[in-house]
């Protein structure tokens, strides 16, 4: 049996093999975006010509596009020429040596979330020693998956090891010129995850980015591609409840999911990027394009997201229900506290017959936070007997925040059944007083009431993720009342 050290050694060699021996000598690209920079990135990653061409096409499209302004968010204009689009992963010398070098405020939050010390070090980017529990866990984990034919690796590895799959599916759900941020991502994406589940395989464990060894440095333009072949099943977890800091303010990720006949993909996200300080300074802009294609009959894609971080969120995980009898689901909790702004929701596009979709959205606004639900349900002419159920609930904590709902419904087939429910509630003083009278203090009362409000979404999350998400909500809303 190989020892952990052997395995680490092997991995280190592989990195060497693929990533960092190129004829380009610099480790970091100069700020700015141009075809040269894109060629540089592609060369750094040792990519095939077709992928470079694909990136360049995306870039040329992007140049003609205009940044969208329809979202209900405000932020300072982004200077795309001042951003650095490639930086080699940090070497251990540049990283903090121990937790003593980490912002005490972050450590306090880790503490509240009950994160073990080793994981704290990993999250904070501390240079840890190679014999590290989770690395060996991750390795055995990958071996087990490989036995089943499941591919779970970084996007860059997939480009090298499974180019035919990447080429076949990349951009088929989110075309490279889909929208401004998706085009930008397509031109310059750094890394991300790649998952392929073969026919008939039920992936026996939750796939989590957390277990992907090099997940910590995916950078600001993450690209994820998940393919579930016929009759397969996979549950994928993205993110992490611990607050993630990043020097890069702009994050523009793209996620594409493809479910073939009778396949199911469950994609769960807990997003907790740094939201900025109380005045909103320094927070992450999270502009994400996530879309799933239910390509085969009876396929199913479920998005579940708990969004508590980022200064500005622009995100609409969507489903294209092409296969007959396919099912799309979207369950969302979005929190905006202090100066956070979230414009999030989903699109359900019904193409196939008897397709059905469910949307449950829970928006929570506190402080001066602004929370917008924006959702679109389209029933095309071909979608005979399609059904949709939408429920959008907003909760306000305090009187300086806002909740907004923009549902768009477009029905081109009269056989469709549509249901839409919406509510806005305020955490009532009545509710808090009632809890107080029973002996529960205000902070616990708020977290209990909010968790109750989000229950329908939390129960869609894998068990331990749900527990973490509840705790996270508590921490995110700390001090928002009284």
């Amino acid at each position, binding site marked *: 049996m190989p020892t952990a050290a052997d395995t680490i050694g092997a991995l280190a060699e592989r990195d060497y093999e693929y990533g960092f021996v190129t004829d380009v000598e610099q480790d970091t690209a100069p700020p700015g975006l141009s075809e040269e920079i894109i060629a540089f990135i592609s060369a750094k990653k040792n990519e095939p010509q077709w992928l470079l061409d694909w990136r360049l096409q995306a870039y040329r499209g992007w140049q003609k596009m205009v940044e969208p302004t329809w979202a209900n968010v405000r932020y300072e204009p982004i200077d795309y020429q001042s951003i650095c689009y490639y930086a080699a992963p940090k070497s251990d010398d540049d990283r903090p040596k121990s937790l003593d070098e980490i912002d005490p405020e972050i450590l306090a939050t880790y503490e509240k979330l009950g994160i073990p010390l080793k994981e704290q070090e990993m999250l904070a980017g501390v240079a840890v020693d190679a014999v590290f529990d989770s690395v060996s866990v991750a390795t055995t984990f990958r071996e087990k998956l490989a036995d089943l034919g499941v591919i779970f690796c970084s996007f860059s590895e997939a480009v090298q090891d499974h180019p035919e799959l990447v080429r076949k599916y990349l951009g088929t759900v989110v075309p490279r010129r889909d929208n401004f941020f998706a085009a930008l991502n397509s031109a310059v994406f750094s890394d991300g995850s790649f998952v392929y589940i073969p026919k008939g395989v039920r992936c026996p464990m939750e796939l989590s980015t957390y277990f992907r060894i090099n997940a910590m440095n995916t950078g600001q333009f993450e690209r994820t591609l998940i393919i579930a072949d016929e009759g397969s099943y996979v549950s994928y977890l993205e993110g992490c409840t611990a607050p993630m800091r990043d020097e890069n303010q702009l994050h523009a990720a793209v996620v594409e999911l493809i479910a073939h006949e009778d396949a199911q993909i469950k994609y769960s996200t807990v997003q907790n990027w740094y939201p900025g300080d109380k005045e909103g300074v320094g927070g992450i802009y999270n502009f994400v394009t996530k879309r799933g294609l239910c390509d085969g009959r009876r396929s199913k894609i479920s998005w579940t997201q708990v969004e508590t971080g980022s200064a500005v969120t622009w995100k609409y995980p969507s489903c294209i229900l092409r296969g007959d009898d396919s099912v799309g689901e979207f369950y969302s909790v979005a929190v905006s506290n202090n100066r956070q702004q979230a414009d999030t929701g989903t699109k359900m596009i019904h193409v196939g017959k008897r397709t059905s979709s469910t949307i449950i959205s829970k928006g929570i606004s506190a402080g001066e936070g602004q929370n917008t639900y924006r959702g679109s349900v389209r029933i095309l002419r071909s979608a005979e007997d399609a059904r949709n159920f939408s429920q959008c609930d907003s909760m306000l904590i305090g009187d300086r925040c806002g909740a907004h709902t923009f549902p768009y419904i477009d029905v081109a087939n009269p056989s469709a059944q549509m249901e839409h429910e919406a509510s806005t509630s305020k955490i009532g003083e009545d509710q808090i007083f009632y809890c107080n*009278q029973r002996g529960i203090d205000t902070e616990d009362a708020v977290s209990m009431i909010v968790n*109750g409000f989000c229950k329908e979404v939390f129960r869609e999350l894998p068990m331990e993720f749900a527990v973490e998400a509840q705790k996270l909500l508590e921490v995110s809303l700390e001090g928002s009342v009284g």
Partner: protein
Amino acid sequence: MLRVSDLHAKVEEQEILKGVDLEVNAGEVHAVMGPNGSGKSTLAQVLAGREDYDITAGSLELDGDDLQEMAPEERAHAGLFLAFQYPVEIPGVGNSYFLKAALNAIRKARGEDELDAMDFLQLLRKRAELVDVDEALLRRPVNEGFSGGEKKRNEILQMAVLEPRLAVLDETDSGLDIDALKTVAAGVNALRSEDRAFVVITHYQRLLNYIVPDHVHVLLDGRIVRSGGSELALELEEKGYTGLTNGSSGV
């Protein structure tokens, strides 16, 4: 146990309580009766520590401690319980989960060990039986979609689980049919004990047929105008509140 002296309280600049005196000892049941707008519910809310009410004069003591110095949850920890006239709905929060959180918050504040899920469930079942509450009610979210009668019974169940020293029942009989009224009364009677006191606030004499009080007080326009034994309630029933005030005033 409870001592209320010359209590004045106002809400939104309007004085509601204009000098209330009330002394309740352990083991006693006191009824406070009065017409609408006499200040009954205000008295209940002030005892529980609702912020919207300003106490402008007088004092409130529970076992010698100044209630005004205590937050609502601290009053609960000290053993004060209010059965709400309008119990509040908390969607998505399970009834038994809520009660466990409440009981453990109180136990923790008193330096007692918190109950684990198993022990709590056992206790909850026993109490539910005692006050005749259906177990199905325990699994539903707190008061959400409950009928008027179910809400009131749920309040009594909460009281039975939290075992307060002093329970204030604010118009627990309102909106109940006679069967529900009997069940609620039986629940209260089952909890009567030597070291526990009740203040039963009600508009009608009806409830007092089932919860027989030791003392009855008549609250009119923010003052207690008569006090007496349980026979006072019957007299009220006969003469009405107006008939009562025409004769005597004060104690």
